[in-house]
């Protein structure tokens, strides 16, 4: 084991890329409709310029590939990458292995925004879910802003603890509001629940277009600061003495991670555990430096979510399990594993 600074080895990135490719292919081939690997590849090859291949698929089957499965795979890659990396970043910023992207109230804020949108009848109309992503986004951002305002006001607690506690308070508040409204408008419960459990089933190219810019920017920012996350890991004062502007660093990372999470949540609902399972698995396999982990969580996070989505699609087909259920099933035992490993390293 070399003692030099952690290095991101090329073949690690390659294995990540391979995982993405394999998951994507599986996502295109598997599903209630029976489409073979050869036909799918031929269909994709057909779309390349200057290439003409007859895949033998009918119009509806082509629609299944291009308009249902492919946007779903792409969205899964984007959301998975974003949630996993945001989770890793949060774990670095808060120095807590159990931090996840919803820590500062993003989930509760988004849920509340969605409830308001659906209850006010904005769920009707041609663009079926259009006001919903916007209100989820707005709600998520409002919650994080509130958390920051409440938690970062010079209290005597150390800033990290203060933020976390304020996040808990804000999340409880928004959850209570959401429950109150839902009780009074109980016919909308199923629609809200549908969002809260997380789904990629209604993924469309619109959602991809909505999410891609946010994911691109936020992931880039987080990847750019990953070296400093390592410094932050030794403690606020120590990092400050190394020349790091701790407050600004924390703010930048939290903003990037929260913005990206809010955007992801607004199109795919609240998918849990991705932000914990993926960073920790990557840590186990490749090392604990954020310089190494974060680029890998981008790739493996995407692959993980696409695979979870395949499970969600196949287990009770043609109905689908909400993807949040699949990740929770995987996540609960995973938490136990993390706790046990943490105990052993003491």
């Amino acid at each position, binding site marked *: 084991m070399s003692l030099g600074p952690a290095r991101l080895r090329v073949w690690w990135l390659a294995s990540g890329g391979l995982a993405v490719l394999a998951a994507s292919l599986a996502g295109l081939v598997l599903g*209630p*409709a029976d489409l073979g690997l050869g036909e799918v590849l031929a269909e994709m090859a057909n779309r390349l310029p200057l290439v003409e291949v007859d895949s033998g698929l009918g119009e509806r089957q082509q629609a299944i590939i291009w308009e249902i499965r492919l*946007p779903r795979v792409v969205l899964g890659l984007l959301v998975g990458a974003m949630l996993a990396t945001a989770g890793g970043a949060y774990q670095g910023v808060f120095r807590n292995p159990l931090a996840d992207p919803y820590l500062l109230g993003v989930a509760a804020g988004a849920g509340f925004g969605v409830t308001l949108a659906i209850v006010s009848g904005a769920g009707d*109309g041609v663009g*079926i879910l259009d006001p919903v992503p916007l209100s989820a986004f707005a709600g998520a951002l409002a919650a994080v802003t509130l958390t920051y305002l409440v938690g970062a006001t010079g209290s005597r607690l150390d800033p990290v603890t203060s933020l976390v506690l304020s996040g808990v308070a804000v999340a409880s508040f928004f959850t209570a509001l959401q429950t109150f409204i839902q009780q009074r408008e*109980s016919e909308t419960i199923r629609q809200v629940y549908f969002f809260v459990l997380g789904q990629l089933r209604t993924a469309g190219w619109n959602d991809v277009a909505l999410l891609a810019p946010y994911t691109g920017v936020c992931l880039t920012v987080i990847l750019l600061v990953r070296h400093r996350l390592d410094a932050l890991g030794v403690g606020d004062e120590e990092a400050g003495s190394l020349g790091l502007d701790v407050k600004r660093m924390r703010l930048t990372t939290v903003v990037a991670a929260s913005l990206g999470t809010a955007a992801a949540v607004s199109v795919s609902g609240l998918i849990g555990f991705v932000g914990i399972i993926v960073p920790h698995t990557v840590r186990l396999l490749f090392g604990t430096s954020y310089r190494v982990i974060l680029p890998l969580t981008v790739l493996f996070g995407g692959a993980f979510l696409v695979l979870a989505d395949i499970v969600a699609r196949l287990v009770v087909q043609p109905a689908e399990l909400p993807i949040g259920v699949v990740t929770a099933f995987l996540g609960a035992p995973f938490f136990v594993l993390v706790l046990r490993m943490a105990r052993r390293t003491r």
Partner: protein
Amino acid sequence: MTTALPITLATPAEPVAIISLSSTATEILYAIGAGDQVVAVDNMSNYPAEAPVTELSGFTPNLEAIAGYEPDLVVISYDPGDLVEGLQALEIPTVMQRAASSIDDTYSQIAELGTLTGHAVEAEALNASIKEELAALADDSVGTGMTYFHEIDNTLYSATSSTFVGQLYALLGLENIADPADKAGFGWPQLSAEFILEEDPDIIFLSDAAWGESAETVAARQGWGALTAVVEGHVVPVDQDTSARWGPRVVSFVKSVRTAIEGF
């Protein structure tokens, strides 16, 4: 479907202060001529127009509010918890008429309400007329050979042919695509867009038209433009109420479906 008549309480021969907390029961009561004996109906009973709608809820009933009307008969279709117990404790005669699982339940519920309200003759006549009209509508299985998808909401919940509405569609010879999706036999499976594309139903019935869904919104859904039903214009909005209730208006529901098919 069970009736829960408290054994210790007998209903008056002709109750004059009936409360209905079931929109179907409301329709039945008015159809058999017992309308002027009804003093209050729940907030979902929107038919007929002359029914005295109140804020009483059939899903979150308030015992005191119900008792405040001093009813001598309460008809419900759902007991969320201890409603029947509470009404019994207040010595209010109660009848529970659960959602019908077949058309025979409809006939027996109509007959029961007829007996209880002193309109047995009208009830029998209503049953005979419904039977006759349904038989006439089902006469030539106009929908034979056609498959359909009955959409309950835009999260793609559907009803199989074993449900009440599914049996009504079956009268016209229509085949339901949701059947193979319901292995547990629950009756209301949730389908996926991919499944519907694969099954390619000839007709799509939208019972969520009142919630903003239409042929246009369906065609705009990702990938749905390739469906036969969308291409041929066989996306049919159906009335949310008549497709979900099991009262006398089942006839108008079946009629509306038949008219739509004949218009293709």
